[in-house]
């Protein structure tokens, strides 16, 4: 008994997605990768977020991964840097049946979009922490998570819709 033909690509997709996820997380969990890639990247994220915030408000600086002003400080830790969301999206893109070129385009667009959105997230959360501390947690836990999920799903659907390897039967 073979698996019906239309089902096989979908199982392959889910399997590849899972394997890619595990692979990415395994790589990120390695200490050398964490120390030499993730942590410096997190520092860069904190600096970029501060720079973005300084467009509208002065007095914000960074020390390491800590964004700070005289009134508020925010420690951008692993997990706050958007890497995990980008990994999920990248795993889905890599697993999806598309050409290599399409996948590379997807990886580039998705990673940049998620990280840019995360910079806006961190900047806005810092601003809320400074000026509207009471709603900081709500935006932190509820609003921005929903927005990131919505953005990731939207990017993936748009990309897969455009770049999916459509079978010949589709074009007949």
């Amino acid at each position, binding site marked *: 008994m073979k698996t019906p033909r*239309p089902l096989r*690509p*979908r199982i392959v*997709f*889910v399997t590849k*997605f899972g394997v890619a*996820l595990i692979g990415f997380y395994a790589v990120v969990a390695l200490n050398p990768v964490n120390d030499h890639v993730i942590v410096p990247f997190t520092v860069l994220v904190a600096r970029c977020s501060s720079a973005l915030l300084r467009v509208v408000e002065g*007095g914000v*600086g960074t*020390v390491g991964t*800590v*964004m*700070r*002003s*005289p*009134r*508020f*400080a*925010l*420690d*951008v*830790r692993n*997990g*706050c*840097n*958007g890497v*995990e*969301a980008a990994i*999920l*999206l990248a*795993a*889905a893109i890599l*697993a*999806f*049946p598309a050409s290599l070129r399409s996948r590379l385009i997807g990886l580039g667009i998705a990673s940049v979009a998620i990280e840019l959105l*995360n910079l806006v*997230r*961190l900047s806005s*959360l810092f601003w809320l*922490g400074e000026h509207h*501390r009471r709603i*900081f947690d709500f935006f*932190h*836990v509820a609003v*921005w*998570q929903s927005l*990131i*999920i919505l953005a*990731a*799903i939207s990017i*993936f*659907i748009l990309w*897969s*819709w455009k770049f*999916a*390897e*459509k*079978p010949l*039967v*589709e074009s007949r």
Partner: protein
Amino acid sequence: MKRLNMNRTYIGLIAIVGLAGLVPSSAFAQISLGTAQGFAALGGSTVTNTGTSAITGNVGVSPGSSVTGFPPGVVTGGSIHANDAVAGQAQTDLTTAYNAVAASPCNVDLSGQDLGGLTLTPGVYCYSTSAFLTGTLRLDFQGNPNASFLFKIGSTLTTASASGIVLLNNGGSNCPQNLFWQVGSSATLGTGSTFNGNILALSSITLTTGAGLSGRALARNGAVTLDTNSVSPCGPIIICPTITVNPPSLPNGVVGTPYNQIVTATGGAGPFTFSISAGNLPNGLLLNGATGAITGSPLAPGMFNFTVTATDPSGCTGSRAYQIIIAAIGCPAISLSPAVLPPGSIGVFYSQTMTASGGVAPYTFTVFAGALPTGLSLNSITGVISGSPQGSGLFSFTIQATDANGCPGRISGVSIGIAAIAAAGGPTLNIAGLTILTVLLAVAGLFVMKRFSI
């Protein structure tokens, strides 16, 4: 006969001198309450009221902060100042007035005598220990409503129930402005008694039920306790503004080099007069009381601490403490940087370096004034301010650097803001978010594949 006339002359002179010693003289300095003039009741620790007391003027306390019983007590023509700058300045001025009365030489020693039944003329009256008023005290102003009565009491002042003061020949005014009671410990006005004058007590003042005071109850260290009283200061009630002396600091000088700086005052109605209320200017420098200019050429090196007080025409004052370092000839101007330090946050390691230039290395760094944030310290050799801040707030301080030749330089107004919250930026997606996104991505992928029949 001639000898007899001469003796009479001597006797007459001796009698005049003797009388001059016995009769109180009103030729003593006028006492100014400064900003305390605006207060009807001022305590050092607390002001406590019971019942429907009616207070005309400010009610305040400093350095304590507890003012209770308003309402039911009513304050008119003023407001309540609980350990604010106004009350603090009033306490300072009260101390000045208290000391001024205490320093006035006695004309008559009334120690041991009950004030009740006495008729006194303007002057300075002293009690070595306690003073009592039982019955009625008569104060004869001799036609001058502005005549001064000063009572210096070594320990307590106590008035009996229903006792009072009668004012004679005072032009019909029932409210003498220059009647002061300097009380070495505490004052207690008896039930239903009436009293006049400004009570300046070192400790506490208690007005028992129904006592009336045409004057002020001003306690330096202790409590003012009221119970269904009326307190109405005599004379105009001046609500003093907060007068600020500027600049915050004065530059240092060098021996023999002309020095010219101007202090100004803001917050009150000018013109202001300026004076050195504490400490001393460097030798060779003078303060112009009218313009506030500090000019001259310093004569000797050293560190000089002094306080400049500005007084407006209403007697309201403001002060600022200064320090000037006069360097010996040959000392260069030593400057420090940076003037602005980046903020820190609680629990996050902080490290910034102060540097000095202009002198001869090595320099020694010290915190000259103010305090670093708790948890931070200054390395005297390297100038590094480092540590993990333990408390939040804005911390201002002055750093001094001394070069190898002992020549000093300072930078004041350096501040570090320590953020109260070092919030950990939460994950972009928590476990729930990651799970949801994983599932949604898988579902979305399957959906698109199904849509295109992949």
